[in-house]
């Protein structure tokens, strides 16, 4: 039996670089940084006072009353999902709602709602806690809202695997279509936790950059001067569709989601395996699942978050799994680290790299790490014919997800 082909027919995003896919992609190709200073009053007490905040506030797209009952992560998931849905042209095509699924995750969920309501509880008592609190903070909230607004009835799912969430959600969408449970899945990730508590927590782990005086240069994967990741917020959503379903309606196809590889390290709650074993296996599985040879991967959108240990560990893994031929890039140098949305946004960058035959740049790579012995699209976008691209995502907890997109 031949396996079901799955293609990407819609893209949506709201990110630190732009309020939609087109503006985000333009900014990426131009090598712009979305990182800036945190000017909120609470930022003064923190060791980290920079972040990659949304370029366009959700209030510009969603009315005030509706926003009152949405966590920010839910609001931006809705914005990205509606863009992807419209982009796919699926409205009014007669798609059976029972064949439409949703798979959208978040790394942390509605933490800002939880903390804001806790402030109200402490200051004014339990009766003042909003009746919208639970649906706003529940981690399945973004997926549920998207499912509700699109009328999806094939199943609404929300995986959580920290910084691998967005990629894992897309992999689950692939599984849903291959298993025959849906013809179309709206899949991706969302994150919005720019708040003193999550920042303090990550900062206490010494995981974040403290280059407060130079925000646009703070996220610098593989550079010798890197000192941690920069927290970003945003959402990325793709529309996955059974290939024959897309063909039958004459849909525009961006790329094929050819394969996925998912592994777990079983090693440490936050440290990746020092030899990258879990990452290597995930990459190998994704390539095997795609039915291609490792030499076919000419470009990798790396996980590379700008941490001293992780960036180099990924290089080892790429060497072991692929050799040294691909052109790699770290778009987090521009977007910051969107945690649960990262894998989805970077999938979109990978897909558009195929479409436009161009590798988006890695900015701030001024003084490459001695252990970096692969070809990076440093500083400037690089024209490249890309039949197949690999997108890596790794998360706290030892989650490794590799996705392979190929030209349709």
């Amino acid at each position, binding site marked *: 039996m031949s396996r079901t082909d799955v293609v990407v027919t819609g893209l949506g995003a709201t990110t630190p670089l732009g309020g939609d896919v087109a503006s985000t992609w333009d900014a990426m190709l131009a090598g712009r940084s979305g990182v800036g200073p945190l000017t909120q009053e609470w930022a003064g007490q923190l060791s980290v006072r920079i972040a990659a905040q949304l370029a366009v506030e959700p209030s510009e797209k969603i*009315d*005030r*009353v509706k926003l*009152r009952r949405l966590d920010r992560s839910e609001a931006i998931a809705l914005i990205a999902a509606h863009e992807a849905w419209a982009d796919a042209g699926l409205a009014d095509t007669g798609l059976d709602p029972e064949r439409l699924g949703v798979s959208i995750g978040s790394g942390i969920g509605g933490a800002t709602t939880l903390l804001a309501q806790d402030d109200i509880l402490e200051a004014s008592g339990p*009766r*003042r806690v909003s*009746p*919208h609190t639970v649906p706003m903070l529940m981690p399945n909230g973004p997926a549920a809202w998207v499912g509700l607004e699109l009328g999806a009835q094939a199943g609404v799912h929300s995986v959580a695997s920290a910084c691998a969430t967005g990629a894992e959600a897309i992999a689950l969408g692939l599984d849903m279509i291959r298993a025959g449970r849906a013809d179309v899945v709206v899949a991706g990730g969302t994150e919005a936790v720019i708040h003193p508590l999550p920042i303090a927590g990550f900062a206490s782990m010494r995981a974040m950059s403290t280059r407060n005086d130079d925000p646009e240069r703070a996220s610098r994967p593989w550079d010798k001067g890197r000192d941690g990741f920069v927290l970003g917020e945003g959402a990325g959503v793709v529309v996955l569709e059974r290939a024959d379903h897309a063909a039958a309606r004459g849909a525009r196809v961006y790329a094929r989601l050819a394969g996925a590889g998912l592994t777990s390290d079983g090693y440490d709650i936050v440290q990746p395996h020092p030899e990258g074993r879990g990452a290597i296996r995930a990459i190998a599985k994704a390539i095997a699942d795609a039915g291609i040879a490792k030499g076919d991967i000419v470009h990798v959108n790396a996980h590379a978050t700008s941490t001293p240990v992780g960036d180099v560990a990924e290089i080892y893994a790429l060497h072991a799994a692929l050799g040294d031929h691909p052109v790699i890039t770290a778009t987090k140098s521009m977007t910051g680290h969107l945690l649960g949305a990262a894998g989805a946004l970077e999938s979109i960058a990978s897909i558009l790299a195929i479409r436009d035959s161009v590798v988006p740049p890695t900015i701030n790579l001024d003084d490459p790490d001695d252990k970096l012995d692969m070809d990076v699209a440093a500083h400037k976008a690089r024209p490249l014919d890309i039949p197949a691209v690999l997108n890596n995502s790794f998360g706290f907890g030892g989650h490794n997800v590799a996705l392979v997109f190929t030209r349709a």
Partner: protein
Amino acid sequence: MTRDEITSGLAEILEEVAGVNPDDVAEEKSFTDDLDVDSLSMVEVVVAAEEKFGVKIPDNEVQNLKSVGDAVTYIESNL
């Protein structure tokens, strides 16, 4: 405080919480059927009304407040 003043106070709350047009708020209007206020928003309306008018509206009273007029009467007699 007159009934009209209470009604217009409720209209402000309904606009803030549920996006109801203040011009649509009148005593004979039902919160759910006419003004489209769902159960969670109704909880917000009640809490905001308690704060605004300085009254207590116990949960077992809320179910009797079907119309704006019901709420006005309750608030007026408990001020």
